[in-house]
């Protein structure tokens, strides 16, 4: 899986409340509408600025907070193709993989807003094309990588009828 896109930069501790605020709780019944407020409390302009294929690069502990699967879902609906972060909160990480949104753990300090990056998901390599640098990424655990390659947990279950840990 190879992904290329332009970066939007965020800091540490972007919570699920930043990504999809509780005041839009009622819009969970209409996820397309909910997605129009994506990341609003981290950057009110983001919903208007983000373009399909863009990439989020953030600091540590991205997605901390609630278990709301709407958080990665609205990010995916907004067109974001991948999230890079120094670290992810565990429920968010698992939810993202489950819905087929690549999440890559790597050092994001040398990635700036507007940089063009290319990611090789399987090899765990992030290339900053703007700066001409290569950044090693922590590998996605093999079983989770399989879920991601299957297109998410829903497709995985459709394919195997069960959790398929082994090859």
């Amino acid at each position, binding site marked *: 899986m190879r992904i290329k896109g332009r970066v939007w930069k965020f800091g540490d*501790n972007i*919570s699920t*409340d*930043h990504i999809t*605020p*509780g*005041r839009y*709780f*009622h*819009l*969970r*019944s*209409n996820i397309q509408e909910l997605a129009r407020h994506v990341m609003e*409390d981290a950057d009110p302009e983001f919903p208007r600025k983000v373009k399909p294929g863009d990439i989020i690069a953030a600091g*540590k*502990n991205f997605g*901390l*907070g*609630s*278990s*709301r*699967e*709407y958080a990665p879902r609205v990010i995916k609906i907004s067109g974001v193709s991948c999230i890079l972060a120094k*670290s992810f*909160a*565990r*429920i968010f990480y*698992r*939810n993202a993989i*489950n*819905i087929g949104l690549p999440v890559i753990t790597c050092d994001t300090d040398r990635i700036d807003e507007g940089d063009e990056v290319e990611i090789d998901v399987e090899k765990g390599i992030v290339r900053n094309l703007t700066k001409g640098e290569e950044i090693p990424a922590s590998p996605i*655990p093999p*079983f989770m990588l399989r879920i991601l390659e299957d297109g998410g*947990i*829903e497709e995985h*279950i*459709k394919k195997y009828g*069960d*959790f398929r*840990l082994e090859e």
Partner: protein
Amino acid sequence: MGKTITEKIFSEKLKRDVRAGEIVVSPIDLAFVQDGTGPLSIEELEKLNMVRVFDSGKVILFIDHASPSPRRELSNMHIKLREFSKKTGCILSDVGYGVCHEVVVEEYASPGDVIIGADSHTCTAGALGAFATGMGSTDVALGMALGKQWFRVPETLRFVVQGTLPPGVYSKDLILHIIGMIGADGATYKAMEFEGEAIEKLSMEARFTLTNMAVEAGAKTGLIATDEKTREYLKSMGREEKYREIKPDADAEYEKTYTIDASSLEPVVAFPHTVDNVKSIKEAEGIEIDQVYIGTCTNGRLEDLRIAAQILRGREVRTRLIVVPASRKVYLDALKEGLIEIFVRAGGAVISPGCGPCVGIHQGVLGDKERVLSTQNRNFKGRMGNPEGEIFLASPATAAATALEGKITDPRRYL
């Protein structure tokens, strides 16, 4: 080499030696969702043509987050949950019955269980010696239908808490202190085990406050070995037969051990906008507060209400005060003890059991530039419905004292 509580529970479930780091598929004893996450779980099951549950007595749908419903869209989501319960026979916990995590520990969670919930604070039940963890809607949906889920068995951080908490310092102060110490990502992917003299002395109710907030340090769950207090608690809930011993081995392997002297602790306050922004009460005192909230799955239990009522008795508040018992049982017990009358006479607004204003949907949404001191577990920007508001977190005692003075106040002055 011995095992941690987590390794013991999974070894028992899989009937083989299971160690931290392994990925396992384990049977589960309970799966639950709430009104914010459940409708999506049901949609997923519909998409997969799996509208069924593995055991109707082990799947629960909670209507607690927006309860009673403040809007039509949410009422329609509630209908979806009620219909699913009718179709599959699974348990419905409807408006007014309580916050999921409180009802789960009162009525369902038992030592040795593996529990998944589509809510991050599912880890609360870990104080009963259960492995309980929060997941997303789809993961829990699959657990509801298949009766199992996959887990990466986490490494464990051990917190040995020695001594005794001084008067005016509670388990809320202890867990805030720990999160301040290790950071909001200090336990990411790990389990936290709490032990030591101070933990043994805590009531079950106070222990739930600790495990409830494990996720605020990024942990997968928080666990406490069972003891006589666990037995007594289960007995008081009419479930004594569910008691059994769940303890780590003496030579269990921990990733790291932290030792804390409880007697050196003070009341603390988490400042906006992260839970690990913890400061001593001295640094917080005097900050003006508009609203005080006592309740939630963290601190809405009877013991919490008693602590607050003791301070509020016969006095009048200077802030808005909102009190929400965590469950119908807590509400009824508080009524019997006269606590509710104390809150109302003090000028408080008592709201029926549920999440109340905790998640910013209704019942106490902050105005611009307003500050709230709450007994809840998180203070992220926008959490209580307004990104222009500020949330401070503290114990029920600090909350009550603060309500009386209109500014953050050391509760020890009212003891």
